[in-house]
């Protein structure tokens, strides 16, 4: 008898193989400058913010939604904190708390637009992408000539968050906590099960007594929280913020989730997959930089990779469905005999 590997396990192995193949490719092309310990800790550092935001984005995609506003939201949170830092004497911890509150409110706004006003997810969050960015410009600090300035955030108690213990950066530690907590909530709580149910079929979820709008809204609020935390670590590392912070960032967590096997149709995928996808994206960026390819090539290759993975997934799922159907037919025959 043949042993059958579970479909989700198989998909996990495929995304891991993709990551290893990418590392091998850059290892051959880039040599030691790519394969050093320092570089890997850098890759993990870059993957961390994507993975932290990816936790929330994965929840939303599992409910068959999408969030295109995370990059602008990150800038809005950062600019709010920069304003508090520049104009008030509030302690650093309360500055961070207010930043997180802004993230939660922004997530709630997305949730209300999508779940209560029934605006299609990608339109609603495309609109808030513009709105959050505009608000960031509105509160951006300008000099005497009205020119928007890069805003420093250089207080030591804050920038320490950008540091590391040995080769492991604090942001990577935070990422580990987020990924573990995110996976536990997804797999072992009622809320997590509800997310899958909503994504698989909204009607049957409603009929089984799940408050669908509330579940979707909470998923968006969690994105807001994750983005705010990501924003804190990003600005702590940069020791400053600008009105342009995070533009184009929204692409990364979505790509990470898709590479990690989270289906855009909803109802399947998990946080570990998104983590693998985040490391994949960070490795790709890092490797391209090491090969002296500038951001332009990154835009091109990222776009092609995400479409290629989605095409692969589409073909792979079709094939798996066919195999499952054949097995079903065989099983029925067995029962008949």
């Amino acid at each position: 008898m043949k042993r059958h590997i579970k479909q989700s396990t198989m998909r996990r192995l495929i995304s891991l193989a993709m990551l290893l193949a990418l590392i091998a490719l850059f290892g051959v092309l880039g040599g030691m400058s790519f394969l050093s310990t320092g570089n890997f800790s850098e890759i993990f550092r870059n993957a961390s913010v994507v993975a932290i935001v990816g936790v929330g984005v994965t929840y939303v995609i599992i409910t068959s939604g999408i969030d295109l506003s995370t990059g602008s939201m990150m800038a809005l949170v950062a600019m709010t904190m920069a304003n508090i830092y520049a104009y008030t004497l509030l302690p650093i911890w309360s500055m961070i708390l207010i930043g997180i509150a802004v993230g939660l409110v922004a997530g709630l706004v997305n949730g209300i637009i999508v779940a209560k006003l029934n605006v299609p997810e990608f339109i609603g969050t495309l609109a808030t992408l513009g709105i959050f960015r505009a608000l960031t410009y509105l509160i951006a600090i300008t000099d005497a000539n009205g020119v928007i300035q890069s805003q420093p955030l250089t207080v030591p108690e804050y920038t320490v968050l950008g540091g590391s213990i040995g080769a492991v950066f604090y942001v990577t530690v935070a990422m580990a906590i987020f990924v573990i907590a995110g996976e536990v909530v997804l797999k072992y709580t009622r809320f997590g099960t509800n997310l899958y149910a909503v994504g698989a079929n909204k009607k049957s979820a409603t009929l089984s007594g799940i408050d669908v709008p509330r579940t979707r809204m909470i998923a968006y609020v969690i994105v807001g929280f994750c983005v705010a935390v990501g924003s804190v670590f990003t600005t702590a590392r940069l020791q400053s913020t600008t009105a342009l912070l995070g533009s184009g960032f929204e692409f990364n967590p979505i790509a990470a989730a898709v590479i990690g096997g989270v289906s855009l149709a909803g109802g399947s995928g998990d946080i570990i997959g998104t983590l693998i996808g985040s490391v994949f994206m960070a490795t790709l960026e890092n490797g391209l930089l090491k090969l002296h390819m500038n951001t332009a090539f990154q835009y091109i290759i990222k776009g092609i990779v995400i479409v290629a993975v989605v095409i692969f997934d589409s073909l792979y799922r079709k094939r798996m469905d066919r195999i499952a159907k054949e097995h079903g037919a065989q099983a029925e025959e067995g029962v008949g005999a």
Partner: protein
Amino acid sequence: MKKIDWEKMSKPIILVGAIIILSVLRPQSFLTANNFANVLWSVSVIGIMTCGTVFVFLAGGIDLSIGTLAGLSAITVVEIIDKMGATNASVIIGIIAALCVGAFAGMVHGLIITRFNIPAFLVTFAAQSVYLGLSMVITNNRIVSAREPALFTSIGSMKILGFPLPIYLMIIIALISWFSLSRTTFGRDIYAVGGNPEASEISGVHVSKDIVLCYVFSGLTAAIGGIVLASMTQQGMASTGSGYETQVITAAVIGGVSLLGGVGTVPGCIYGVVIMGLINNGLNLMSVPSTQSGLVQGVVIIIAVAFDALQHQDQSRKKVKRISEQIKGTASS
């Protein structure tokens, strides 16, 4: 007593309202033919692109790539003119090449979306990034200027009967779109596909082929928009056209196009484009910085789409009520 159909009346009321507000705000200059031409000129590129992308919206899809695709087309034409020494022949070759880029890109979007059954927003969102990257690679992050020859610069600025050429282009493309949507089988099929893809497939509509054609048309008008934009500004750079996708979506939803597919008209789109022009004009008037345009557009999109979704819900609720009453009626008799 006759009831007023607010749904039908809302469009003219908003238009007249906007014109009155703007004339009050700037009495001496707003109500002139010159200013009106300016308003139309400033939105003609959005108009051209909306008239093509509306096909995609009607078929139930979305095209987020049109902004950077317009940029890529603009760069294609400007680079060819630059490399070929600003001759008239280079302008024609450049324009043809840019149109090919747009149509080809649209075809690729359509094929990927229909062949592999992938969400349209994801494909066009990823494509947006690819085109931006390509534009940056081609231009090497420079601004490529095209002040010559006159054949090229006149596309954006030549005036016929007091109105600039782009306005005529917009009207011509709007007429073509309007004709193919309301007077041809293809147009009727598009509405059917957007309304219910499965049902139209069963009734013999070539759904995949029609959807691919919609994206080709969207890509083509994005390319035309890019060419006009390059001619207006006499230059091309990687950021040319970026953000136009949001403006086009805003214009379309103001004009009553449902992003759920199957509902919307070309005259509606043109109305949406004119309102966009008036909004931009009004924001200019109140000296709101351009960085704030995303705020206005975002709020307008959310209100319009939420209103559309609400009506959808209302209709289906009424339908359920009607059917259940019918069932009750037959049961009691």
